[in-house]
């Protein structure tokens, strides 16, 4: 036997992680993982960041993964450690984020005995992960770790759990280096060129084309975003991004119509509704994007490129399906567009742009901010000022959010020019995501400016991570739009439930300035519009963690809005567009 046989399971685990290029683990110790923590203590190759709650560890790993393109790694103990991680895992599954989560488990001979801190982790996490493993034999350990990383990052990325019984990590185990490939999981990355040709033929004939891209383009790496930009510019077509896809195409570009969907812009949604050829890449036609399905973009031929065949024809039947990596697909589209001598219909395109510009002239994101001294701050204005005042910052800027109105306003009013700089919980809609995700981003990018645009209700769901910020001197800025309500719940109650604000008001909110202080951070507060810029400027000069508590108008609603059960052309616009509201149907009321 080689010297490798002298390693313990814990040492084999760390060696496998190192061979997978892991630099940081977000975790929390406990009985079942003590041998792993002991091995971590005796090495320097891998850093450990001690979180304050296991959900925070997974979101931090997500932030790390989304801002670097690498796999995020989590280490938690058995039982409650694992169950606390489930929300984060489900979040990563819904948003296709590569995460490997190592969970401790009771020793193999106690599994099934209701032992202390035992939970059926592989059973519980099966629907919350892309795949999971329970390592029952020492000789399977190294292979399981390597496979987990391969599965997490290949194809449509996602979270993978490796459940590690304590006897497996204590006992001796052989080490095997990473193998290439996988016996059964081999996702198709190269698009079929026949399908590319069909897509180009449709696009060349389009009179009212529309491009709609999602998180798949971000997941495919910066080269995919570059190819997307090249394709959009060479076609001259309009483009919209999903919430997950923001940053794949530069927001400042005139061909960009803003985000689409429930809180998307008027021009993006109406262009989706009225187009005759729709090209979707790395997006999944989810209900927040499509609105009422039987009214969704009825007049268009649809081309759908996705790495996950199960995303194609799931909600919306399409005419041309392309299975493959978004980057490879876009490169193939660029090449085929240029190689095809057919002229696209420039005249029709000009007419189409004239129509889009008319929609754009509606300024659907418009809001009115009273600039008088002492006036209440509009949340949209706070985000606009945050955006404008950060333009002069000579740092890479990353934005995370919690979930709710502030998240939608951030998506609407903060402009993203490049991929991997915007992290938000899209699919699962996890309140409490933003602070730990920002923490993970800051760990990966110590010199960057990382801002969590938060709501006061969401941020309290993982506020304990302020302790982690303090311990590792992570200068994350928590920018709270404080309206004292669960704003999106309040908005729906106003619009759909007769203004009965059942349990959506947070009485007895903490004093966020004192709260920041108690967590060794700096607390700032803006009560009125004249104080806003100073607070933002001060926040940006502080090299420690900051909570900026921005008191905003509690009555402000997030518009435009496609009410549940409505179609893209039945959008409600804000107060600036009185008399154009669409009704909400009984069928719509059932939807979330």
């Amino acid at each position, binding site marked *: 036997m080689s010297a490798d046989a002298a390693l313990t399971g814990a040492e084999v685990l760390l060696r496998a992680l190192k061979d997978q290029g892991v630099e940081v683990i977000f975790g929390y110790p406990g009985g079942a993982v003590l041998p792993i923590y002991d091995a971590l203590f005796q090495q320097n190759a891998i850093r450990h960041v001690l979180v304050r709650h296991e959900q925070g560890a997974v979101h931090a790993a997500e932030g790390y993964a989304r801002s670097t393109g690498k796999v995020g790694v989590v280490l938690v103990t058995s039982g409650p450690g694992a169950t606390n991680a489930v929300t984060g895992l489900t979040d990563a599954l819904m948003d296709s984020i590569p995460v490997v989560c190592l969970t401790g488990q009771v020793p193999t001979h106690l599994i099934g005995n209701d032992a202390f801190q035992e939970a059926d982790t592989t059973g519980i996490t099966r*629907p919350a992960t892309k795949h999971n493993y*329970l390592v029952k034999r020492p000789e399977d350990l190294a292979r399981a770790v390597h496979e987990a990383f391969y599965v997490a990052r290949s194809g449509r990325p996602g979270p993978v759990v490796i459940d590690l019984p304590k006897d497996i990590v204590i006992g001796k185990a052989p080490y095997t280096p990473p193998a290439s490939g996988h016996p059964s999981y081999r996702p198709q990355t190269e698009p079929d060129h026949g399908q590319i040709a069909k897509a180009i033929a449709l696009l060349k004939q389009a009179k009212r084309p529309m491009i709609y891209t999602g998180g798949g383009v971000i997941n495919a790496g910066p080269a995919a975003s570059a190819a997307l930009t090249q394709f959009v510019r060479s076609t001259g077509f309009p483009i919209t991004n999903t919430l997950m896809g923001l940053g794949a195409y530069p927001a400042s570009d005139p061909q960009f119509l803003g985000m689409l969907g429930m809180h998307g812009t008027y021009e993006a949604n109406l262009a989706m509704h009225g187009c005759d050829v729709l090209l979707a890449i790395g997006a999944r036609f989810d209900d927040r994007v499509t609105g009422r399905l*039987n009214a969704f973009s009825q007049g268009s031929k649809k081309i759908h490129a996705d790495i996950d*065949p199960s995303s194609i024809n*799931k909600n919306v039947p399409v005419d041309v399906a392309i299975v493959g990596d978004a980057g490879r697909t876009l490169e193939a589209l660029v090449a085929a567009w240029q190689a095809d001598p057919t002229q696209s219909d420039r005249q029709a395109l000009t007419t189409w742009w004239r129509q889009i510009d008319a929609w754009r002239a509606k300024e659907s994101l418009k809001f009115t901010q009273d600039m008088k001294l002492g006036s209440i701050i509009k949340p949209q204005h706070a985000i606009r000022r945050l955006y404008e005042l950060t333009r002069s910052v000579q740092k890479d800027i990353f934005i995370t959010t919690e979930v709710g109105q502030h998240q939608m306003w951030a998506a609407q009013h903060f402009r993203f020019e490049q991929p991997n700089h915007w992290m938000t919980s899209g699919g699962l809609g996890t309140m409490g995501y933003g602070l730990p995700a920002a923490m993970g981003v800051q760990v990966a990018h110590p010199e960057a400016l990382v801002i969590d645009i938060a709501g006061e209700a969401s941020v309290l769901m993982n506020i304990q991570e302020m302790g982690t910020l303090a311990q590792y001197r992570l200068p994350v800025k928590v920018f709270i739009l404080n309206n004292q309500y669960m704003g999106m719940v309040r908005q729906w109650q106003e619009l759909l439930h007769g203004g009965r604000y059942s349990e959506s008001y947070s009485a007895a909110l903490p004093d966020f300035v004192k709260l920041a202080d108690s967590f060794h951070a700096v607390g700032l507060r803006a009560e009125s519009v004249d104080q806003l810029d100073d607070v933002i400027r001060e926040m940006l000069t502080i090299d420690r963690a900051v909570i900026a508590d921005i008191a905003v108008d509690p009555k402000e609603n997030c518009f435009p809005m496609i009410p549940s059960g409505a179609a893209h052309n039945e959008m409600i616009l804000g107060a600036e567009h009185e008399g154009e509201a669409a009704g909400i149907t009984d069928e719509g009321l059932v939807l979330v």
Partner: protein
Amino acid sequence: MPDTTLRSATISVLVENEPGILARVVGLFSGRGYNIDSLTVAAVESGGARSRINIVTSGTEMVIEQIKAQLDRLVPVHRVADLSLEGPHIAREMALIKVAGVGEKRVEALRIADAFRARVIDATHESFVFELTGATDKLDAFIDLMRHLGLAEVSRTGVVAIARGVRTI
């Protein structure tokens, strides 16, 4: 409008025989609200490295395509074959059927069993256990006939299926 016609599909799935694979497949069906009309599973390779799962399900064309795509993206799945779509196939199941009774009904049960080529594999003075193999509708028909003749208990395997000719999964 999307096609709302329902069809039945017999899907065979070749999987890596690892712990939890059946739970993964069943969980996929329950989690996404698909029907399982029948499910069978057994190791099909020497050494038990791979298992074959046969699922009979029903849904619209779009749902069945979705089921196949969802099955195919499970990590331990090697291959998914829609036998109802990919050409002629044979599907069989086996049932053990207990019929209790005396006198004329007992004789009639035996007569029908003979017509269906069911074998008697257990007999007492008050009962028979028939073994019957065949297509699902043949089993259904036989069981239906036995209802009036003292049907006491049924145990069925569920469908196993395979393509006709040289084609393999």
